[in-house]
């Protein structure tokens, strides 16, 4: 009999059982109930509901705006995370705390505030509108709201990973003759890319389901600025619970597919990175290219 491995926390069986029950109660049960409810409709009917002109337009708006918002945050969130980890500056703790605000703010408040800011007479809107840029009550407004809501996901995912990259690695790359650009592209970026993808995926998933903030800034015009959650509410207004569930299930399936592909991509890049070389070797290679 092999020797028993001692863990810090006891009771693997208990902990696993607890985990399964907890996840089942919290996630599997409601989602299962939803799928079960939707299965009262035939597959053909679900597809029919999900491919109506209005539903298709709403899917396009929802997933398109969510993708854009997540992409914007992947870029600017990376910069924010980098600054917050690497540079000391006065008020840094304050700025760091600011990042979490979108988590804490009720989403409706966020939506109303953004709509007021970006409306034609708002602080920002009055300067943008003469330039022909309309934000509030257009699809662009949806992107703005989703970008606001999802910022913390990218920043908070990236921060610990950037903290783990020691400055010595950059110094090593530099001392071996790598340029700044080479150091970033060949040493730093590969190390943070998996976390960036995770942050992107989290932001995207959160954005797809967002309702409270969006409806106040979207304008909600059919075929132009209606999001799928609004259509779901619209079905509920008609006491059409089944139709609402059908839309929700399709949305869930699409989100799951997208998240799965992000995960696969992440797993693939992480693996490639692992099989390749540790950071120090990458640093050496980066410099080798110039040598």
């Amino acid at each position: 009999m092999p020797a028993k491995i001692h863990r810090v926390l006891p009771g693997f069986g208990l902990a696993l059982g607890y985990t399964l029950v907890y996840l089942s109660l919290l996630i599997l049960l409601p989602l299962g109930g939803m799928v079960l409810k939707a299965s009262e409709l035939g597959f053909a009917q679900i597809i029919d509901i999900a491919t109506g002109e209005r539903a298709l337009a709403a899917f396009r708006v929802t997933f398109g705006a969510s993708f854009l918002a997540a992409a914007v945050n992947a870029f600017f969130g990376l910069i924010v995370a980098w600054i917050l980890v690497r540079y000391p500056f006065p008020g840094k703790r304050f700025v760091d705390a600011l990042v979490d605000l979108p988590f804490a703010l009720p989403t409706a408040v966020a939506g109303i505030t953004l709509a007021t800011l970006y409306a034609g007479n708002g602080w920002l809107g009055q300067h943008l509108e003469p330039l022909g840029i309309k934000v509030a009550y257009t699809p662009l407004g949806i992107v703005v709201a989703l970008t606001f809501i999802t910022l913390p996901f990218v920043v908070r995912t990236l921060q610990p990973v950037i903290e783990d990259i020691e400055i010595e690695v950059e110094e090593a790359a530099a001392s071996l003759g790598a340029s700044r650009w080479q150091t970033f592209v060949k040493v730093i970026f590969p190390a943070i890319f998996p976390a960036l993808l995770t942050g992107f995926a989290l932001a995207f998933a959160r954005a797809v389901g967002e309702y409270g903030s969006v409806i106040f800034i979207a304008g909600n015009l059919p075929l132009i600025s209606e999001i799928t959650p609004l259509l779901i509410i619209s079905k509920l207004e008609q006491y059409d619970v089944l139709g609402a569930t059908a839309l929700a299930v399709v949305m869930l399936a699409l989100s799951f597919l997208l998240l799965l592909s992000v995960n696969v991509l992440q797993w693939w890049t992480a693996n490639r990175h692992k099989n390749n070389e540790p950071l120090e070797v990458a640093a050496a290679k980066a410099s080798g290219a110039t040598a």
Partner: protein
Amino acid sequence: MKKISKSLSALLLGLVASAALADVNLLNASYDVARDVYKDYNPLFQKYWKAKTGESIELKQSHGGSTKQVRAVADGLEADVVTMNQANDIEFLADKGLVAKDWTKKFPNNASPYTSAMVFIVRKGNPKGIKDWNDLAAPGTQVIIPHPKNTGNGRNTYLSAWAWALKQPGGNDKSAQEFLGKLLKNAPLFAAGGRDATTTFMQRRMGDVLITFESEAEMIAKEFGKGEFEVVYPSLTMQTEFPVAVVEKVVDKKGTRTQAQAYLDYLWSKEGQENAAQNYLRPRDAELLKKYAAQFPPVKTFTVDEVFGGANKAFATHFKDGGSFDQIYVQK
């Protein structure tokens, strides 16, 4: 463990004690902006009931979107009475067997103790000269309304415009739909709800005209000042009802039928009617309507029953998926 159960039982005791202070408690599930009306009405009823029966009664309010509220009641929220702003929401409860099938006959006036009307709010001086529904469809006019499919306020506006178009020479369903198409083209957005539409119009200064309840106009005056806008009464508009009903299943279970019935009956009393008038809702009482005439100018109205054959039918024809509203936007 002992500690937890001790504190739990203390908590339970506390809850029981607070409930026991009143002899009876009633829960009124109501629509969103009814807060003010019932906040003022509840103490009136408590006083009346105490004087009449010696029983002290605790009144709780639950507010939310009308449709959300009735769904909560259908799902088990133990409301003794429902006071809503759309008949089809109470119809839903009647279909589920929670409310009497003939609920509209249980109280006078179609079970609606007070009414309002859909009116136009325009900017000071009415710069676009907006007088009637056809002005809203004129090119270059911007109209601010909540989503016609998802909000009661938006639906009332839609149906008002439709009814007006029907009454025009040669008016029929086809011409009415064309008219609505033109009118909706003038909406730069559909607000999330009635109050959101008000904010968009008054605070963000969007649009030339806002369509909302007459009662809401007074709220706007309180919030933004009377000089900021004018109220325009169109030649024909909807008389909006605010139906009430006793939730049979709940009062039978709780044994609160007498109190619940009395609570709603009292809405038709002089005090109840005056409270409505003071909250800018048109009382059913003719004398009071006269007393508050300055606040309620005469306006030609129609009811949904007269023009559309009932709230349910109107909803099915116009706002269900594929209904007249959807047809305006989606060709398929």
